[in-house]
């Protein structure tokens, strides 16, 4: 796209309305995508990016399955319908059969129904962990970046200490903190690890904006500080935060599986979750690898979907790639 001096090609009318003059000015200053916001131009590039489309398709499918799973599943995921075919002594699990295309699990429950219904809990773990991590990071990062001074120092020291432990190790430690592990403790453990990362991201973005023209302009116009932070600075920081949140969704689902593997996951498996199914299959993996392969495959595909979307959004929002 080539920049134009003004919409009509002539000089802005001197006595025109203020709006027209501003429009003309905005048009004349646009170098690349004249008058197109970063978000709009990012979206235009995303729409044609196969990486984004594949990732988005995976996510949409995942969410639809999760929402419809109670109707999609042929059997009750916690009913031990094939219990008669389970033999501890001979190390046998129910094979695939009429009505049970993937067979049963170690206690005779329908594997396919468990996978379908499991998507719901998996989605929940991912979304809640991300939202909690994001909320915590948003509060800390905004405080540090907007207020500066000792608040900034204090918050950043806490963040530094949290970041001085490898994140997964931190999640394990937090997961081990609770007397009775449950879905909630898993979510909390995975979420806490993300707080310092979001906090850093937001603080950096806030600091960068404090001296920028649009904030100075708002201050000069007498906009209240709170409004500057919430109306002008925060919205401008959202791009990288959304990208990070998308990537964290993938990480959260994988980390939850790791917690289950270490025995720090939800022990109640009446409502299935993929990470828990994978963690629970570790003892039978040598004789019945399929019990691990199916939930692992689901986790990998979904994590990949979120990663693809996150990465392609990051590329699209990068002003360097704006063409």
């Amino acid at each position: 796209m080539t920049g134009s001096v003004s919409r009509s090609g002539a000089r802005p009318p001197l006595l025109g309305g203020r709006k027209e003059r501003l429009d003309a000015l905005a048009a004349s200053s646009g170098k690349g995508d004249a008058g197109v916001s970063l978000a709009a131009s990012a979206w235009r590039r995303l729409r044609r990016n196969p990486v984004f489309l594949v990732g988005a398709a995976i996510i949409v499918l995942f969410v639809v399955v999760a929402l419809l799973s109670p109707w999609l599943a042929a059997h009750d995921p916690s009913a031990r319908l094939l219990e008669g075919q389970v033999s501890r002594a001979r190390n046998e699990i129910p094979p695939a059969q009429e009505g049970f295309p993937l067979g049963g699990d170690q206690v005779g429950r329908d594997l396919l129904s468990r996978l379908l219904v499991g998507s719901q809990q998996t989605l929940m773990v991912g979304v809640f962990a991300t939202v909690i991590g994001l909320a915590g990071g948003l509060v800390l990062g905004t405080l540090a970046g907007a207020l500066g001074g000792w608040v900034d120092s204090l918050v950043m020291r806490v963040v530094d200490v949290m970041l001085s432990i490898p994140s997964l190790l931190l999640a394990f430690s937090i997961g081990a903190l609770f007397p009775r592990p449950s879905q909630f403790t898993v979510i909390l453990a995975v979420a806490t690890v993300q707080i310092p990362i979001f906090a850093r991201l937001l603080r950096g973005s806030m600091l960068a904006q404090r001296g920028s023209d649009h904030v100075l302009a708002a201050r000069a116009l007498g906009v209240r500080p709170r409004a500057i932070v919430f109306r002008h600075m925060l919205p401008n920081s959202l791009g990288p935060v959304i990208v990070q949140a998308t990537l964290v969704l993938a990480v959260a689902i994988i980390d939850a599986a790791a917690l289950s593997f270490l025995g720090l996951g939800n022990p109640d498996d009446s409502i299935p979750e993929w990470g828990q199914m994978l963690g629970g299959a570790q003892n039978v993996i040598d004789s019945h690898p399929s019990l691990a392969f199916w939930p692992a495959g689901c986790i990998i595909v979904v994590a990949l979907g979120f990663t693809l979307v996150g990465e392609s959004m990051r590329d699209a929002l990068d002003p360097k790639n704006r063409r």
Partner: protein
Amino acid sequence: MLRYTLRRLLQLLGVVLVLSMLIFGWLRALPGGPVSALLGERGTEEGRRELTAQLGLDQPIFVQYGKFLGRALSGDFGMSTGVQPGDAAVEIFLQRFPATVELSAFAIVLAVLFGIPLGYLAARRRGGWLDNLGVVGSLVGVAVPVFFLAFLLKYLFAVQLGWLPASGRQTGGLEATRVTGFFVLDGLLTREWDAALDALAHLVLPAMALATIPFAVIFRITRAAVLDVLDEDYVRTAESKGLTTDVIRRRHVLRNAMLPVVTTIGLQTGALLAGAVLTEKVFAFPGLGEALALGFERRDYPVLQLLIVMAAMVYVLVNLVVDLSYAVIDPRVRTR
């Protein structure tokens, strides 16, 4: 430079102190506790109280921390209550440290050896088959849970094909002289080649599992960094000056692209211990990661305290080394 290093080391001390306090309080808050872990369900009320007093767990928490700190400064981190009951925590650390270092070093060498050249080649032929394969592979690599990959490798190469050992650090019954505790190095030093080879064979699968994520990340960062640098004006200038391709690649492209790559290598090295917890558990590899996994399971406070603080220290130190290595790679950093 020296002052900078000293200041960073002082910061490290602060981080370790705060961290030790946090972990101390935090681990005390762990449910169950070592008393239940040691006595199980059978313990009588009497026995419980006695053991609690014996372990000093009945005193106020700051008294406990004070004592802990005092003893820690003289190298005493208490006795293990669950991982290897009766052994000193420090002993367990020293015993297992070489195993994890050996494993991590092998893993990171694998990741760097494959990640940097492939990332560089992918960037030079952007959009080619190697580039596409690498990008897709690195995305998938990050999406695969580490422990599942470890299981997959073990299932395929150890259980099904039987090419490599499935667990441990060395074959049972093998006589080997121990000098350093690093089994491969020991074998080389004492010229016991079969012992060195045996130890190496035990490292391959866990190291491969552990290397996946660092490899994927190093590959992508190298690719991105090289792509960035190839776009720079000074590369075009160098080309128009008529420098040979070889000189441009080595001096202008690779050197400048290395900054973010070195940071990434450092960060990934520091974070390896988390992956080691999972990988070592799958392969029953007797390192720090396995001790941590057992420690969580059995609520072994002394061992967990020591290992987590140590993990954090290594992480911070590695980052310091990374920052210092900037000055070596990029002279501009030195003058700042």
